[in-house]
């Protein structure tokens, strides 16, 4: 119950932010942080709670992004109508990838490689077909109005991404307090034991990848609406897959607030290094990389690991 209240307080604070801050620069950082937290939470549901480490979450992100773009550009749909369709498609791709890989018992690095391969296949397909704009990508027409999911100010986008991110966090909270979540974590920790206690391992994993895919694809829709443009490399490239797993790894895998903390830490640090070392391009990225190495070495449980009593998946590596 305590973490649910913390979540609500967090939502209220962020929602009140535009009343005090009018700087587009600051709001943009907040929006991009929430967006990274959404992708991170989507990954965390499958990776942190389900123990299935995906290296190709771009496959869901890109599907959401392209679904939104194609439905608007080629079929003239309203963006708000395209949103649920894109989310459903993300879940469907999750079911497809999950059914194929879990049916054949792929786990650990094999699962990671298969997801990577799926993202790559989708990237090549979207690069080839005229339907998705091929290599040129798709640009959605600029018609700024809330009715078109294209806000004139950043505040509108802030509220939308805040809603998405809170929804993802609410799902994660539910995982921590429900039978399905208990089953999912049981499957993560030991599939055989879970099966011996009556857990349908395949279906539980399939559910997790569908939820994860749906949320990730909502992130894709947001991206398209915010930047008005999508191409194969942005949609299905490895960059998004890595961004999705970075926030939970830095913040704390398998925890509710890990992806939020991780996204905030990464973005604040990223801005800081960019500003301090803006004169020497590339240095900021090196510092960024160094920080990650240090994090993984000395804080394997992420930022959440600093708080005693927080249970998460990393607990296994320090005790088992």
């Amino acid at each position, binding site marked *: 119950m305590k973490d649910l209240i913390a979540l609500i307080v967090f939502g209220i604070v962020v929602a009140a932010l535009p009343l005090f801050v009018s700087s587009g620069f600051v709001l943009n950082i907040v929006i991009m942080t929430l967006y990274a937290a959404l992708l991170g939470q989507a990954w965390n549901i499958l990776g942190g709670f389900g123990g299935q480490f995906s290296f190709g979450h771009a496959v869901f992100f890109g599907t959401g992004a392209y679904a939104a773009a194609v439905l608007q550009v080629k079929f003239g749909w309203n963006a708000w109508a395209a949103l649920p369709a894109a989310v459903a498609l993300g879940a469907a791709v999750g079911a497809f990838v999950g059914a194929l890989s879990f049916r054949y018992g792929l786990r650990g690095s094999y699962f990671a490689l298969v997801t990577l391969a799926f993202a790559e296949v989708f990237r090549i397909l979207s690069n080839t077909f005229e339907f998705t704009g091929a290599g040129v990508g798709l640009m959605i027409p600029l018609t700024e109005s809330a009715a078109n999911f294209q806000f004139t100010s950043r505040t509108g986008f802030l509220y939308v991404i805040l809603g998405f991110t809170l929804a993802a966090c609410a799902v994660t909270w539910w995982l921590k307090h429900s*039978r399905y979540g208990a089953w999912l974590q049981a499957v993560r920790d030991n599939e*055989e034991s879970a*099966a011996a*206690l009556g857990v349908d391992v395949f279906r539980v994993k399939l559910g997790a990848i569908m939820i994860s895919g749906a949320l990730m694809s909502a992130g894709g829709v947001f991206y398209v609406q915010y930047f008005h443009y999508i191409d194969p490399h942005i949609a299905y490239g490895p960059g998004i897959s890595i961004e999705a797993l970075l926030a939970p790894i830095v913040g704390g895998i398998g925890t509710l607030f890990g992806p939020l903390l991780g996204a905030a830490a990464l973005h604040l640090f990223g801005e800081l290094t960019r500003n301090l070392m803006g004169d020497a391009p590339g240095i900021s990225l090196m510092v960024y990389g160094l920080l990650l190495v240090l994090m993984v070495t000395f804080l394997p449980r992420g930022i959440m690991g600093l708080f005693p009593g927080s249970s998460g998946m990393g*607990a296994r590596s320090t005790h088992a």
Partner: protein
Amino acid sequence: MLEVQGLSINFGGLKAVEDVSIRLQQGAIASLIGPNGAGKSTLFALISGFLKPVRGRVTFLGENITGLAPHVICRRGMVRTFQIVQPFAAQTVRENIAVGAHLHHRSRREALSRAQAVARRVGLADQLEKLASSLTIAGRKRLELARALAAEPRLLLLDEVLAGLNPQEIRDMVPVIRAIRDGNGRDGEGGDSGVTVLMIEHVMQAVMSLSEYTWVLNHGRLIAEGAPTAVSNDPQVIEAYLGRGSAERLRREAASA
């Protein structure tokens, strides 16, 4: 309650379980013994659906369950434990047991409170908030038992829950297992008659004091069955454990002494 007919499986050329038939009455507490590598755990895996038999048939509560998935068999009321304990290491003892309780109870609150009740029965009540990975081997064995119990089984397959325990820990556990069968302290609905238990066990003291009937497996085949005391005097069984000719030698030594 459980009927196994002509169950067989082979791994390559090795006949791990060959034509095994057993029949278990409701309310019984029976055991399966045999030397290492005799196929006891394999037989458990075949019965509980973790392995699919090449031949044979498993009937549970009057229904054919041969080849069903493990979780389906579990939902019908047969729950197994593992010889090599497999806790959900990153979770607390309470969360571990609750996974079992969730089989019949959707509510998280209900599952967690049942976990507490089950923990009390197996003597884990004071370790509920500990991480499973921090338990001693005796604690993990208790946890393995508790998780299975929380799933409210009608038939419990225990795979060496006493192995690795010291004599004092064994003395503590024996009454726990007997109470499971007798239904004492069972937190389920009233009038519950306890759980039928089939156990694989190496600790003969426990086999003798707990089980009413025992089967002996050697090289994948049943070589003897009956009351534990009778079986332990069976020449074939002695030879299986101590080697060819040992039964004869023991008898001669006993006669000359």
